[in-house]
């Protein structure tokens, strides 16, 4: 709403500068977008909140100004000359849908001369950002900006039978509105019709019809000033996708009492600018007249909510200026500042949203000044708690960062076809019914799709080394309900080690990924790895990741087929683990930590160079060694691995280092030889392993 500074002076003798006024308005609840100095003086851009339709007018803003500066508001009292002919003989109004239209007033002016508006009117409209059309149409816009109540003017002679019927729209009813567009309405919409009510001349509270529009040949004018039910208007505007100055005001709740005054004021101005003869009286059908409403406010409640007091005279001055007519009603009337003070207020017709004591307290506080309530920090009553997995998640995050991973955050809206690349079978994705684009039409069913996109972004921007992780959620539907699962997603590409002064470069490999995952897995006890995994991973470089008996995810190199879709020209590694089981395990493992006395006797290492058949896994070796039940074995490690030179085809060489240590005594050479003999025999027997050298 553009507030023309000089226009305000019609209603309140404000002396503050436009900038100062704007600042005071902002601090009392009218949000200000800015102040501009134009050819018609200062214009304050007021961003009126949706609960204050009364401020969508100069009169309403002037009331605020009066309350702030304690200045009287000048009332509007039109005094147009009326002819002896009665309006009630010239026009009939019938409201068939009082639930949609609570009031309809009609006035008639005969013999007007439609012509361009005078300069003063054009200027005011221009300052308000409204185009001038003709004197009569301009008057209706002017009165709306002045008093906040929308009006509509008809060419009286085009209204059939000079009769208005307000009714609910019929199924599939159509109307051509003022903007020339034919619109289909639905049966919840209020229609203004004429004659027998069969054809529409306007959509109630939104826009008039083209048929009865004022033109330069119009002689006689019918002024409609009505009141439409706000929710119905908002619904209709949304249904029609037609938002007008009128629908904004009616939709937020216009003042039904203002309808008659605004009509009277419009008649006065039309007579002044277009001449003619105003028929006496008004046709006023008012089924929605509201009874008076009393609201009580007490000092006790002001103190309970606001935490500091407001003096009696401030309470009374602000409520009076805003039209609430406060009256002290408690026993201690006359005792200034009484804790028992209570005021009874009347709800003004322009403030339908003020219904409760809290609403009045807000009015008092905003006019008194929010800065007058001294800030203090409340005392805490109980201990505060972090999120259940906060500590586990922090440990996890810190370890990942220590391993060189950078945390990312992504938007879960992705393209359906991309999501499908990583989506497990049988998962129903959460599609959006109103996506902004096809590129973002489904919520990710996995974290991998957005991780791949983050790698894609970096590769496309010349960043070929990236090691990323995200802690986030993925989404799917289970019937009619949604499921959100917290996941850890990892994505890497490029070099594990960049070329430096002292080291050669080394590309990231599956082993790097596995090592990193095992490092974080160590926080949760240990991860188990199992062959297999989803088919978005490379068939020979992937694994399922288990925690205890449960699979919690998969890791590996991105399959070529999927990599091609992203146009990746270098290897990409991805992993995704469910976060909740991981965090639970981290918590359990952390709680179970205890001290292990350090061994007092030296450890002995023995290396076994084994020749194994392809397909025999290291885990097979450890299993057989462990099965021997030698308690002194403290670790079994693979320390070297190769194929080729001196190794027959179909075999590979594995160097296994076994560490022995006793808690009771230093192990003797004889003991170690005995253990080694047993180990070699068992490996030969069970795995067909050959010992190459020792």
């Amino acid at each position, binding site marked *: 709403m553009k507030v023309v500074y000089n226009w305000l002076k019609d209603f309140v003798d404000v002396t503050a500068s436009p900038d100062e006024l704007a600042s005071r308005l*902002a601090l*009392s609840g009218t*949000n200000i977008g800015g102040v501009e100095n134009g050819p018609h003086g200062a214009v304050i851009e007021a961003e009126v*909140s*949706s*609960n*204050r339709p009364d401020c969508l007018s100069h009169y309403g803003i002037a009331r605020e100004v009066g309350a702030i500066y304690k200045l009287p508001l000048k009332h509007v009292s039109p005094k147009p000359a009326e002819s002896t002919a009665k309006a009630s003989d010239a026009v009939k109004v019938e409201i068939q849908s009082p639930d949609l239209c609570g009031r309809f007033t009609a006035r008639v002016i005969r013999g007007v001369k439609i012509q361009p508006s005078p300069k003063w009117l054009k200027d005011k409209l221009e300052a308000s950002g409204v185009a001038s059309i003709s004197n009569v149409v301009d008057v209706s816009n002017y009165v709306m900006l002045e008093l906040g109540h929308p009006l509509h003017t008809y060419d009286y002679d085009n209204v059939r039978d000079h009769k208005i019927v307000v009714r609910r729209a019929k199924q599939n009813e159509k109307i051509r509105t003022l903007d020339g567009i034919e619109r289909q309405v639905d049966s919840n919409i209020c229609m203004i019709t004429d004659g027998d009510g069969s054809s529409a001349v306007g959509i109630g509270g939104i826009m008039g019809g083209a048929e009865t529009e004022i033109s330069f040949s119009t002689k006689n004018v019918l002024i409609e000033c009505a009141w439409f039910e706000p*929710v119905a208007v908002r*619904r209709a505007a949304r249904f029609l996708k037609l938002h007008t100055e009128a629908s904004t005001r009616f*939709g937020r709740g216009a003042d039904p009492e203002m309808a008659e005054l605004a009509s009277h004021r419009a008649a006065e101005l039309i007579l002044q600018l277009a001449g003619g003869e105003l028929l006496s009286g008004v046709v006023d059908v008012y089924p929605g007249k509201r009874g008076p409403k009393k609201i009580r406010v007490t000092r006790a409640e002001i*103190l309970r*909510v*606001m*935490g*500091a007091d407001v003096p009696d005279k401030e309470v009374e001055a602000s409520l009076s200026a805003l039209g609430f007519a406060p009256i002290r009603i408690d026993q201690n009337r006359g005792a200034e500042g009484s804790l028992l003070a209570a005021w009874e207020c009347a709800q003004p017709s322009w403030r339908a949203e003020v219904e*409760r004591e*809290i609403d009045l307290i*807000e009015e008092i*506080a905003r006019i008194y000044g*929010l*800065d007058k*309530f*001294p*800030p*203090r*920090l*409340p005392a805490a*009553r*109980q201990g*505060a*708690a*972090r*999120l259940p997995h*906060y500590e586990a998640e922090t440990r996890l995050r810190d370890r*990942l960062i220590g*391993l*060189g991973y950078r*945390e990312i*955050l992504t*938007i*879960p809206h992705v393209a359906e076809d991309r999501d499908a690349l990583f989506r497990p079978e049988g998962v129903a994705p*959460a*599609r*959006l*019914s*109103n996506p902004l684009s096809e590129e973002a039409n489904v*919520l990710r069913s996995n974290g991998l799709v957005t991780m791949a996109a*983050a790698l894609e*972004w*970096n590769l496309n921007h010349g*960043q070929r080394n990236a090691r*990323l992780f995200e802690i986030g*959620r993925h*989404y799917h*539907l289970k019937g*009619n309900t*949604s499921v959100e699962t917290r996941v850890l997603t990892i994505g890497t590409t490029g070099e594990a080690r960049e070329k*430096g*002064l002292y*080291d050669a470069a080394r590309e990231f490999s599956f082993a790097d990924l596995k090592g990193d995952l095992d490092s974080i897995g160590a926080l949760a006890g240990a991860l188990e790895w199992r062959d297999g995994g989803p088919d978005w991973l490379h068939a020979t470089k992937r694994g399922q990741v288990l925690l205890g008996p449960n699979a919690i995810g998969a890791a590996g190199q991105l399959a070529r087929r999927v990599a091609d879709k992203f146009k990746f020209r270098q290897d990409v590694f991805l992993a995704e683990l469910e976060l909740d089981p991981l965090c639970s395990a981290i918590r359990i493992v952390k709680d179970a930590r205890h001290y292990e006395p350090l061994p007092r006797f030296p450890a002995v290492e023995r290396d076994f160079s084994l020749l194994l058949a392809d397909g025999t896994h290291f885990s097979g070796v450890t299993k057989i060694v462990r099965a021997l039940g030698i308690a002194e074995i403290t670790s079994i490690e693979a320390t070297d691995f190769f194929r080729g030179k001196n190794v027959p085809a179909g075999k590979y060489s594995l160097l296994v280092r076994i560490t022995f240590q006793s808690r009771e005594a230093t192990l003797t050479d004889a003991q170690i030889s005995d253990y080694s003999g047993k180990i070699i025999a068992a490996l030969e027997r069970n795995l067909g392993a050959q010992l190459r050298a020792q």
Partner: protein
Amino acid sequence: MYLATMPNVENPTEKSLAALAINDPPAIEELFANEKARFDKQLAAKNPDEVNFNLMKNAWLGRKAGVLTLITENWLKPAPPSLKPAVGQSLNQLKRHIEESLEAFRVAAEKASQEGATSRDRVDLSLPGVLRPVGSHHLIRQVFQEIEDIFFSIGFSVVEGPEIETPYYNFEALNIPEFHPVRDDMDTFYIDLPKGASTPLLLRTHTSPMQIRTMEKQKPPVRVIVPGKVYRRDNPDATHSFAFHQIEGLAVDTDITFCDFTGTIEYFVKQFFGPSVKTRFRPSYFPFTEPSVEFDVSCPFCGGTGSSNGATCSKCKGAAWIELFGAGMVDPAVYGFVNYDARKVSGFAFGIGIDRLAMLKYGIDDIQVFFQNDVRFLRQFP
């Protein structure tokens, strides 16, 4: 160079006192003085370096055949009881002298070795060390953490909630009925559900639904913050993203007032932006708070003056104030949805936009960088 250890007829330490015909303390003193002089002469003749240090240490202090061991074995142990104290005392003095002299020699040797080192051996401090890759938290995560820590320190617990919500929690229970004008400001994504679904699902437009979910579960006192992602169907540009981050706050108790509310917010913002920042509350409107406010801080970039270096401040556009977030006292109507007695309890709620706060604090002019995850951006906030 083997002088001290080679058997030598001239070397008195090979012989016992008796064989040397020493039988009174002055003679013993003289004998030790000779040894001391011999040590000093040897040491003075040597360049201070590590080899000489080890040689001298071995010759004089060596456990098996060092001079002091010989003296102990040949002079002290066989000495008659009447001379033992004198021999012992002199031996200790000699030992201390040798140890101190050798330590000084060692220090001199070390210094000489460093000074003498050629520039070829010296490290070039301008060359980088071996840098192991280090990761980083996302900036938004860091800001979340900072804000959580501030509120945690004044007794706020942290809770989380679903991002896919029902209209009841996102709107109705927050006193935003269908067709409420405020819904027009929160353009909402809806989930495409199978036909026949009774309750629509949407992406929450704010973290406020957790106000309701928290109060449903818990009786006052309530003091929680809710970090999380929220969604609005806005076309993306430099200041809009259809996904962004919020922290909701809610405090409800039997004695929470507007003063407690402003005090809490002021405490937070001074912790976050620094103690010199000024604050103000402007009346505003939200359906689920009353009184409602917009909260402003004095522009941290121009110190609340509206201009910097003589030009209009580019951050606050000369306004001197920056609008931070909306908040207010919980509207009593909301208590009706969670079976709280609005006459007995009161409280406040706020919703802080994290992305905007991070952009303000770190001078970021495009919200999209948060979601592109370019490593060059991620690296800037280790």
